[in-house]
């Protein structure tokens, strides 16, 4: 139902005035401390007074409270990101200034180049090696893409078998896989390390990729979606002479694109952000992923916060950009996990 023009106009006033009052809080606190909060409270009271006595709309009171709560919460959510980004352009001296500055007096764009090219120490305390972040990005992107594609293929095949085929021990097998979601991963760490050592895969790409090819979460997610595809489609495909594999490839997978993207995102994200596994299965610096490289830089750089913030920013940036493009799939995927 479209709102009358006057109410819509009023809603915009509520929206804008809420943001203005919140900004008074931020800047007031910055310059006045406690007094800034009092100024904020005063303006907020003034707005509520106007709503109650002039407009007389309880809905606007509720909206105002919601906005203020969301803005204050949002401020704390964004603050670390803002701080990370803004510090990455400060000089060494300014990054260590107290009280801190909210805007760099001079932008040092070179920080990013310097952080990118800084030699990274080995995480075990050996002397630094001349490796730039180019290598770490290369390893991370390679491993991420190969794992995600491989995991998609492996999981889709298994999920299809669970969803669509009859075979002995199907129920039991499926329950074992579900039960494995509950085992703490640390239990598996030690023996997996041994297996990889026996296979002589340590310090090779295989160690970073192959154990993550079968994602229980992806199998479960895809299976739940494959079940909902009507059986009639399979009958029709059979009449047209398609085999199972062709049916899976040309009908089922195009139909389940959103779920596949969701599963892919989670595989890639888990891979990109994982620290512990690559830390344990690799010792050579040139086999390390971006996160391990960043952690090594973290331990090396000490209080060079301007460089550390620059490195953190470009380590986070690819995922943030991916998130803005694929947000819908993230949200859907997570929302689905809570609702059976």
């Amino acid at each position: 139902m479209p709102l009358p023009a006057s109410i819509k106009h009023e809603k915009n006033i509520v929206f804008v005035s809420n943001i203005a009052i919140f900004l008074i809080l931020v800047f007031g606190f910055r310059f006045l401390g406690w007094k800034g909060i009092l100024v904020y409270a005063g303006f907020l009271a003034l707005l509520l007074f106007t709503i109650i006595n002039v407009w007389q709309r309880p809905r606007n009171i509720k909206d105002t409270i919601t906005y203020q709560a969301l803005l204050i919460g949002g401020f704390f959510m964004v603050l670390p990101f803002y701080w990370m980004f803004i510090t990455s352009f400060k000089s060494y001296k300014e990054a260590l200034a107290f009280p801190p500055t909210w805007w760099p007096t001079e932008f040092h764009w070179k920080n990013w180049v310097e952080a990118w090219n800084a030699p990274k120490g080995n995480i075990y305390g050996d002397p630094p090696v001349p490796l730039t972040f180019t290598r770490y990005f290369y390893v991370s992107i390679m491993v991420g893409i190969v794992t995600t594609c491989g995991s998609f293929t492996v999981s889709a095949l298994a999920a299809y078998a669970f969803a669509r085929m009859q075979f002995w021990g199907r129920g039991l097998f499926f329950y074992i896989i579900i039960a494995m979601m509950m085992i703490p991963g640390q239990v598996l760490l030690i023996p997996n390390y041994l297996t990889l050592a026996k296979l002589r895969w340590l310090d090779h790409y295989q160690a970073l990729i192959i154990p993550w090819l079968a994602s229980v979460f992806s199998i479960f997610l895809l299976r739940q979606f494959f079940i909902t595809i009507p059986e009639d489609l399979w009958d029709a495909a059979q009449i047209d002479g398609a085999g199972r594999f062709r049916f899976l490839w040309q009908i089922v997978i195009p139909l389940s694109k959103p779920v596949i993207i969701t599963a892919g995102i989670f595989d890639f994200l888990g891979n990109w952000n994982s620290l512990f596994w690559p830390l344990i299965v690799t010792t050579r610096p040139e086999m390390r992923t971006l996160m391990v490289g960043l952690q090594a830089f973290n331990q090396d750089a000490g209080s060079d916060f301007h460089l550390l913030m620059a490195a953190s920013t470009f380590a986070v940036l690819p995922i943030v950009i991916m998130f803005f493009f694929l947000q819908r799939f993230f949200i859907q995927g997570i929302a689905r996990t809570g609702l059976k």
Partner: protein
Amino acid sequence: MRILKQNAEAFCYLLPATLVLAVFWFLPVILSIIISFTNWKGLDTWTTVKWVGLTNYFNVLQDAEFHQTILNTFNYVIYSVPLTLLISLLAAMLLNSQIQGRSFFRTVYFLPFITTWVAISIVFRYFYDREFGLANYFLKQMGMPRLEWLSEPRGIWTMLFSTIGISIKKPILAGPSLAMFSIILTTIWRSIGYYMIIFLAGLQNIDKTYYEAAEIDGASAWHRFLHITVPLLSPVTFFILVTSMINSFKVFVPQLIMTPSGGPDNTTTTIVFHLYEKGFQGLWLMGHASAIAYILFVIILIITLIQNRILGRRVHYEV
């Protein structure tokens, strides 16, 4: 014959997944149970390995360091899980209204969750820094003294009560150390968005007509929340509670990268952190570390079963 063919076909589809799962999931579960009964160290040759029965388990359970890590882990779980759930439920309820810019706020709240722990720990190490951190800047603006944040071993209640002259002696009552509490605040900051999305999906699943009917009958907002939202949201809450509890017991990465040496007086060493120290940081006591892993597994299992017994019955699945 047809059945046989179908089985063979299904087997081909399952083969890649089964192979990976068998080698990297099934096998390790069995192997680590065996290792936990031996005196094996990572650097020994197999010939010197001896079967030691339950010795590793007794050693772990008698280790004073391990008791400290159990206390630390429980401190972490008890403070982080309820706070995270409450804040994310609140955020979800605020977002479940018809205001402008909802998707903007959703994005902002969710963003920390996709950020890697390494970058977060770097930023928060800076944030909590004693000399030039933002946290101490805020305290200064409010006219309060500086805090040590990540290097403060005293419990938060000890610190709070000492300002009014009461001293707490018992370590159990002291609460998490301020160092641990700083980490807890960071993990809350990171995971609010994730649980908020699940809560939001749960809230949007509740039929609006219940609220309308209750409003006509004159139920207040508080009563509508208590008698409609709470019961109808209980399956989602239960799911979140169980999963977040399990994950919190296994917590380790934030502690490792924010306080690499185990924090002031080892107050941020969690059970898995302890496992990592024993197993992988130079000592290579694989048998001991495996025993820790299974003791943790049993703790998680017991807690989950208790949750199921006590809370499971109160969950309303029917709508």
